[in-house]
């Protein structure tokens, strides 16, 4: 670590500490993506893709590993999730990883990528355009390139992600990450986002930007990249996930796993669910159980519980239908529970534990 310290400009005020090894023990096993260096996490809005990306980064940061978590949509979602100050365009340590059996956990770093900074850095790094870069800025070229010129924004964002995965001699003092997790744009835009370098390579038929774009596409299409899709067990998100997988495959981009998020609790078994749907739950047993547990059956509690059970059973049945469709996608799937209290730092470690248990990391 010390060798890299210079690159982590200005130590962060807080590095979040995860659970100590003794509290949480998850056995390190071979996981499903040993060759993958770049994990792209996408998902429909509202499915919790940022949460899953963060949990995956924690899960990957086992003993001695450095993991970088990147965001590209300007929302400062990482800072909010980890409860740290807004992130600058600079790699920062934000949390310790999820401990494994072999000792102290690794480190999760975070980077907030904005296209303007990425462009200026790119110009400085590849063209030694210190002065000219500033001139470009004065002339409005940076603004033009990052907001108006087609696709350039995405090229810059993906270009920086590429640089973080494939550190080269131009950025000597930088940390070499064992894995990079990208909290990517939503499913509807993901193939276009990752493929933008290809589009640009088509637009610029030759020249240096073309060879740069080609190199980036080579990484994105290689087995060192995996695009994971987050969904919930509802019709539209599952449909969109299937469509997204189709588009990724068509674009030659490697499809990773599907993470089913926000899964309802399973406190009732299959038989009880069937009775709940049929309205044949045994009310007298419930009533006597409640009495035994010291709960008063005032205000129609039994009726309420039975009604809730029916509603729950209906939703579980719909979930099962969608789960079958997810199964048909024939990619590895992982399931994360819906946490009634919402997602805080502790919840992220809980979800990371789940992902590791299920072999995603």
């Amino acid at each position, binding site marked *: 670590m010390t060798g890299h310290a210079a690159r982590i400009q200005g130590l962060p005020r807080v590095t979040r500490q995860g659970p100590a090894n003794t509290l949480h023990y998850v056995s390190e096993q071979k996981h499903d993506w040993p060759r993958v260096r770049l994990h792209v996490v996408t998902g*429909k*809005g*509202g499915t919790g893709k940022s949460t899953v990306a963060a949990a995956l980064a924690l899960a990957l940061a086992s003993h001695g590993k450095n993991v970088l978590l990147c965001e590209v*949509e300007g929302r400062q979602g990482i800072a909010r999730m980890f409860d740290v100050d807004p992130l600058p365009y600079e790699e920062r340590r934000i949390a310790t990883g999820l401990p494994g059996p072999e000792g102290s956990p690794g480190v999760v770093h975070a980077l907030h990528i904005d296209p303007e900074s990425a462009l200026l850095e790119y*110009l400085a790094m590849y063209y030694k*355009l210190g002065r*000219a*870069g500033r*001139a*470009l800025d*004065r*002339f*409005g*070229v940076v*603004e*033009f390139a990052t*907001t*108006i010129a*087609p696709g350039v*924004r995405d090229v810059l964002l993906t270009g920086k992600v590429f640089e973080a995965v494939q550190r080269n001699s131009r950025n000597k003092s930088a940390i070499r990450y064992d894995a990079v997790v990208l909290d990517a744009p*939503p499913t*509807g835009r993901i193939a*276009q986002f990752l493929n*933008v370098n290809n589009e640009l390579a*088509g*637009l*610029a038929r*030759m020249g*240096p*930007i073309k060879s740069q774009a080609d190199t980036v596409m080579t990484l994105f299409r290689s087995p060192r990249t995996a695009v994971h899709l987050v969904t919930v067990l509802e*019709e539209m998100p599952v*449909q969109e996930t299937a469509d997204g997988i189709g588009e990724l495959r068509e674009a030659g981009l490697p499809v990773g796993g599907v993470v089913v998020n926000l899964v309802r*609790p399973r*406190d*009732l*078994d299959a038989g*009880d669910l069937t009775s709940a749907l049929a309205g044949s*739950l045994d009310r007298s*047993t*419930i009533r006597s*159980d*409640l009495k*035994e*547990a*010291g*709960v008063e059956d*005032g*205000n*129609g*509690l039994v*009726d*309420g*519980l*039975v009604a*809730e*059970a029916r*509603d729950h059973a*209906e939703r579980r049945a719909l979930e099962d239908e969608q789960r079958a469709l997810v199964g048909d996608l024939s990619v590895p799937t992982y399931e994360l529970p819906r946490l*009634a209290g*919402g997602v805080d730092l502790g919840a992220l470690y809980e979800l990371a534990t789940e992902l590791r248990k299920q072999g995603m990391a």
Partner: protein
Amino acid sequence: MSTPAHKTRSRSRVGPLTEGTASSLDVDALLDDPHTGIIVCCGSGGVGKTTTSAALALRAAEHGRRVVVLTIDPARRLAQSMGIEALDNTPRPVVGVATEGGGSLDAMMLDMKRTFDEVVESQAAPEKARQILENPFYIALSSSFAGTQEYMAMEKLGQIHAAAQREGTYDLIVVDTPPSRSALDFLDAPERLSSFLDGRFIRLLLAPARGPARMMSAGFGIITNALTKILGAQVLRDMQTFVAAFDTLFGGFRQRAQKTFELLQADGTAFLVVAAPEPDALREAAYFVERLSEDRMPLAGLIVNRASPQPEGVLSADEAMAAAARLRKHEPDSLTAGLLRLHADQSRMVEREARLRERFAAAHPEVPTAVVPALAGDVHDLDGLRRIGDLLAGG
């Protein structure tokens, strides 16, 4: 995607604008008011904006209004049930709407590229239009440029509104917006286009096309050299051709954008912000609410979709969990324990959502709110939309 305006104009948060607590949103009063001519639904992705727009439009139509709903990306089965699977950029009548009240409902799905092409064709001479439509930069810009979709949705709204005024086809237009913050980018469009046109870089790109300019300064040399080095000469040439060809069009665009902006600010327009009872969605909703009031856009209210249904009974989550634990000690797979745990989970969700809504209302008490409970299944037919409509109206 942020825009230059977001960057340069530092935004402060906007707190309460009135005293007191948030009132409930009277959806029927809004739909039935003949002065309501345009309803714009905005909000982040995955909150049910499209379904809400469709449900509002259907309800208004069945209340006797002549409605057109402009949607962006409906779920396939919903689109099918409304007869708008085909992307042809023309409103089509929806079959199965109860029209006894004299109302009607048309629907259309926005084809962003088609709309852009139409604008170019209507603004430029055929030869010039062809040149633009074939330019590689135009093709990339019109199909994938961040912000184009938002802008084109508003362009289409302007067109439909003008036609409705002229021909008396519709008296209410319901607009669904793309799922992002940039849905409000259209508010910046006039400002953005002017700064784009007057930008030094554009003048620089146009310089060769406009003959020998006096821009052969030191700066110019650095810029063109740098750009040639990065992009290659061919890209720069394509770009220059595109900008030169497009130059004459921008004046027209700017005017149209200004008109749409004024239309949105007018009295007959109502913005509805749609959210889910989740921290991120409500944070985005707050952004929309603040941005709209800053631009003096007529905000009608907030719709909170997918609220967890209130569990019956007075048993608290903690009590239920404790009772479940006691039962499980004797009988590990006790049904009643399972029911109690479900009840606890449900109560916790409801509590959390209520707290989130209260926090929102404390900061924005002037925003009337409607809460729509989550349905068990997805909505993909008119009956489902009617149910949502009833729930929106508080039924």
